[in-house]
C-alpha cells in the first residue's frame, strides 16, 4: 500500500528545513539539498496559499507556500492529484494549528520543536490500512 504523500519538507524563507519526513531514505542528501533550494526559489514565486507542481523521474512534486513557509511534498505519479492536494491542505492546516504564526515568528531556530509533527500527519487512510493490516489482513 503506497502512502498518498511520500516525502515532506517544510522550509522557511531562509531555506532552513524546519521539518522533513523522508519516505525513501536511499535518496542522496546532496541531491535533496540542491532540489530543495531550487524548489524554495520556485516557491517564492508562489502567491500565498498557491500551489505549483511538476514531475521528476517517477515522482510528482507539489509546493505550496503559507505564512512564509514552503511545504514541499512528493507522491507517486500514479496517485491522484486531488488526493495529494487534499492531504497537503490537511498537513498545512495541522502545522499551523500546532505551531501558530506567533510561535513561528519567535522561533529560536531549534528544529526539535517540530519533531512531534510526525505523529500528527500520518494520513488517516494509511493509518486505517495499517491497523487493518496489523489486525486482520
Amino acid at each position, binding site marked *: *500500500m503506497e502512502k498518498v504523500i511520500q516525502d515532506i519538507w517544510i522550509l522557511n524563507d531562509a531555506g532552513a528545513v524546519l521539518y522533513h519526513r523522508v519516505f525513501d531514505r536511499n535518496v542522496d542528501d546532496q541531491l535533496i539539498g540542491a532540489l530543495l533550494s531550487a524548489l524554495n526559489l520556485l516557491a517564492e514565486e508562489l502567491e500565498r496559499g498557491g500551489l505549483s507542481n511538476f514531475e521528476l523521474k517517477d515522482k510528482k512534486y507539489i509546493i505550496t507556500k503559507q505564512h512564509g513557509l514552503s511545504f514541499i511534498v512528493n507522491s507517486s505519479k500514479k496517485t491522484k492529484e486531488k488526493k495529494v492536494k487534499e492531504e497537503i491542505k490537511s498537513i498545512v492546516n495541522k502545522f499551523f494549528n500546532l505551531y501558530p504564526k506567533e510561535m513561528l515568528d519567535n522561533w529560536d531556530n531549534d528544529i526539535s520543536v517540530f519533531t512531534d509533527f510526525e505523529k500528527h500527519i500520518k494520513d488517516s487512510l494509511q493509518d*486505517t490500512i495499517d491497523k487493518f*493490516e*496489523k489486525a*486482520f*489482513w
Partner: protein
Amino acid sequence: MVENIYLNFIGMIFESFILIFAAVLLVLILKKYFIKRHNLTRLLLLIFLGYFLAIVFSWLSKVFVVTQLSVVQDGSINAYLYNIVEDFRLSEFLVTIAIFLSYILKVNVFEKGYNTVQKIIVSIYGLFSCVYVLLIYENNNDFLDVFAFLIVFIYMVMVYAPFLRRAIESYRAVEEKAYKQAFLSLAIMSFSFMLIFLNFAIDRVFVFLGGPGFTVFYYLAWVSAIAGIFGAYYGYIRPRSSE
C-alpha cells in the same frame, strides 16, 4: 398450533444454515486471532462470538416450539430464562453487547480517538437497550417485543451507519484492488447488519397485528445476516496484506 410448529420448524431449519455459516466465520476469525494475536482481532472475535450466540439462542427458541418444550409460568428464574430465550430477548442482549464492541472496533480502526459526546451517547443507549431487552418484558406482550427490536435496530444504525460511511470513504480513497474490495465488503456487511433488525422489527409488527410471524421480512432478516457474514469474511478474513 400445528401451523405455528410448522412455521417454527421451517425457521429452525433456515436458522441451522445461518448457524453453520456463522460458526465457520467464527472459526476463521479464531484462526486469524491465533495468527495475529492483536487486540483488534480479539475484539472482532468477541463481536462475532456475540452474534453467533445470539443466533444459537434464536435457533433454540425455535427448537423449544418445535419440540413443544415449555415451562410453567410461575415467575421463577427458570421461567424467566425460558422466556428471554423464546422471545429473542437474550439474543437481543447479546447483539447489543456485540454492537457496543463494534463501536469500539470502529473507533479503533477508522478514527484517531473517541468523540466524548458520541461515546457517552453510545454507552448510555447501549445500557438502556440492555436493561430494556432483559427487564422490560411481559410474557406474550408483542407490543413490548416490537419496541425491543426497534431499540436494537436504532442501536445498530447508531454504530453501523458511521461504520458504513467510513468503509465507503476508504473504498473510494484506496487504490489497491484487494483493499478496495475489502472496504466494499465491510460496507456491505454494515448495511446488511442494519437491515437484519429492521426486517425483524417489521416481522414483529405483523405478529403484533395478529399474524403468526415468519413473514417474508423474517427471511429477509436472515438473508441480510448471510450477506453480513460474507461481507465480514471478504472484509476481515480474506484480504492478505502485501507486506
